[in-house]
């Protein structure tokens, strides 16, 4: 597909040297020869293996933990519990002042999802660590759990996370993120048709081929080198520094080579506990998720529900849109308050609508904590919005692509969150898509542009 000369003719330079030219990827020679060094391709003499004892319950109080048999298991070097972690209660977005701290590195008194880390076992071999982990005795008092966002928001529902005290994230704007633009009820009253539809999604696991993990080597001078496949190096370093109460200059992070991430490797989960293990034993430590852990323990994309109510005129103009979104954070915040907030900013999509009302909620349930994944906060929303656009077009008997041309935002249009549209290219993309897909639209739509309104 070409970038037509007619597009943005006065805004573009065509004497570019790199753009439009194929260039060899600098990492490919390593990939095809098997020489690329992933974190697990390193081996250190005396390296210990870390295995996690995990909660078998979705929600339970921990009455007691007995590690005595595990500690006696041959090959075991160290067993870690909550009391060993200097700053055990944390939340990753505290780096940008989004609290409260609501998650434990190792469970302390309670578990809030099935699979939560409770005790870390460090041993000479993977097998010894696994066998010893099975000998840790945890006495649980099982509590009622909540798995559904509607259930979680009902009065009297079990509280998932006491650090929040309620089953939703409290923004500075209240129980949800809100966008208010124009008068949405007046828009519905004026509309020829009103269509309300509900959309929902399940959690989605990234399932990278390389599982999450790290290897930490003590450097013998109170400094630790952490070889990791995190997708967020400095974010992880800074959070590890808080959790371990260790200045950042004691931590050296080596990474950037990631065997598939897709957002699943931006939570700070394996590094702090592995660094702590290396510090307390003086030995290199490897903590790598099994495939089962990757599928069951690592954060998935959040389950979402999206309810969209639109008012549309017979001529194709959308005059009002009301969106209520719910994001299932699981038991802890991680990136979900931010994801739900992104959704609020993203609706009502790339369309200019004069009357908009948006509420997006971040809800806590006793499910695996969700977090980042490819466009999280907007991907499921886009699915819902574009299905809704097709339904609206069908409702008024209009071509779905022409319906989008008619409502597409263009430079100068005010968006619902009061940022003027700049640099829009939706119309040009749709013009090319129309040609490429051999889906012709009326000539008037092929003649307009994103930045010359009325042309």
């Amino acid at each position, binding site marked *: 597909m070409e970038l037509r000369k007619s597009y943005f003719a006065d805004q573009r330079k065509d004497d570019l040297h790199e753009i439009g030219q*194929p260039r060899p990827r600098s990492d490919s020679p390593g990939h095809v020869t098997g020489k690329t060094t992933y974190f697990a391709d390193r081996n250190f003499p005396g390296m210990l293996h870390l295995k996690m004892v995990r909660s078998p319950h979705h929600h339970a109080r921990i009455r007691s933990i007995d590690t005595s048999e595990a500690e006696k298991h041959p090959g075991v070097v160290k067993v870690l519990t909550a009391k060993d972690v200097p700053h055990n209660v944390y939340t990753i977005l505290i780096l940008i002042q989004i609290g409260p701290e609501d998650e434990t590195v190792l469970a302390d008194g309670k578990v809030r999802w099935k699979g939560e880390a409770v005790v870390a076992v460090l041993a000479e071999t993977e097998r010894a660590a696994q066998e010893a982990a099975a000998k840790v005795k945890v006495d649980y008092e099982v509590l009622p759990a909540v798995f559904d966002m509607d259930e979680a928001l009902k009065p009297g529902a079990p509280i998932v996370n006491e650090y929040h005290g309620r089953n939703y994230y409290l923004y500075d704007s209240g129980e949800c993120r809100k966008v208010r633009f124009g008068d949405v009820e007046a828009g519905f009253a004026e509309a020829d048709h009103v269509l309300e539809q509900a959309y929902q999604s399940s959690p989605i696991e990234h399932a990278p081929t390389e599982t999450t993990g790290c290897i930490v080597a003590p450097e013998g001078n109170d400094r630790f080198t952490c070889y990791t496949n995190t997708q967020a190096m400095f974010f992880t370093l800074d959070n590890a520094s808080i959790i371990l109460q260790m200045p950042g200059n004691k931590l050296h992070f080596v990474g950037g080579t990631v065997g598939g991430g897709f957002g699943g490797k931006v939570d700070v989960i394996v590094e702090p506990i592995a660094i702590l293990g290396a510090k307390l034993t003086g030995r290199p430590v490897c903590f790598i998720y099994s495939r089962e852990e990757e599928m069951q323990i690592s954060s998935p994309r959040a389950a979402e529900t999206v309810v969209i109510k639109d008012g549309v005129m017979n001529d194709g103009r959308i005059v009002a849109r009301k969106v209520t979104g719910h994001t299932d954070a699981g038991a802890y915040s991680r990136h979900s308050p931010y994801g739900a907030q992104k959704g609020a900013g993203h609706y009502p999509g790339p369309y200019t609508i004069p009357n908009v009302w948006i509420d997006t909620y971040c809800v806590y349930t006793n499910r695996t904590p969700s977090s980042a994944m490819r466009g999280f906060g907007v991907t499921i929303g886009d699915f819902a919005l574009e299905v809704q656009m097709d339904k609206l077009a069908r409702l008024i008997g209009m071509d779905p692509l022409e319906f989008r041309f008619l409502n597409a935002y263009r430079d100068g249009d005010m968006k619902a969150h009061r940022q003027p549209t700049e640099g829009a290219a939706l119309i040009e993309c749709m013009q090319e898509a129309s040609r490429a897909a051999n889906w012709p639209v009326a000539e008037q739509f092929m003649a307009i542009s994103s930045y010359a309104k009325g042309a």
Partner: protein
Amino acid sequence: MAKVPVQFTLNGAEKAEFIDSGTTLLHALRDKIGDTSPKGGCHQGTCGACSVIIDGELRLSCLTLAEACNGATIITTSGLSERGVLHPLQRAFLDAFATQCGFCTPGMIMAAKVLLDHTPNPSREDVVEALSGNICRCTGYEPIIQAVLTAARSNSQNAA
């Protein structure tokens, strides 16, 4: 634990190690011998990242016991290039942008090599079938299929 001796040829070189009985070939290659080109993605025979060639056949090294490889001839992706010259498959993967994160690449190349060794002029369906045990979660399958077909064509041109 009593150690077991194993001896095999890896990429043309004789290798001998003492291992714990029950050690997988993947573990022996990566942690004992130091060839980290086979990758551990699932350790249960489902992802194909650990694929190697044993006596001409494609094998999952995570499901193969090292002690069962006594006397075998083993090839891994790290042994394909000769004196710095890339194997036609490696060249084709490079040129076709058939790598993204790269983690599945060594296993993909092994599967493709066994295919081309047995079927020098494969159809597209042959390629898809041959790579069906190898998962690319970046989902860049199409460039990978094209790379294998390109390598097959360049092989047959060289042979002609």
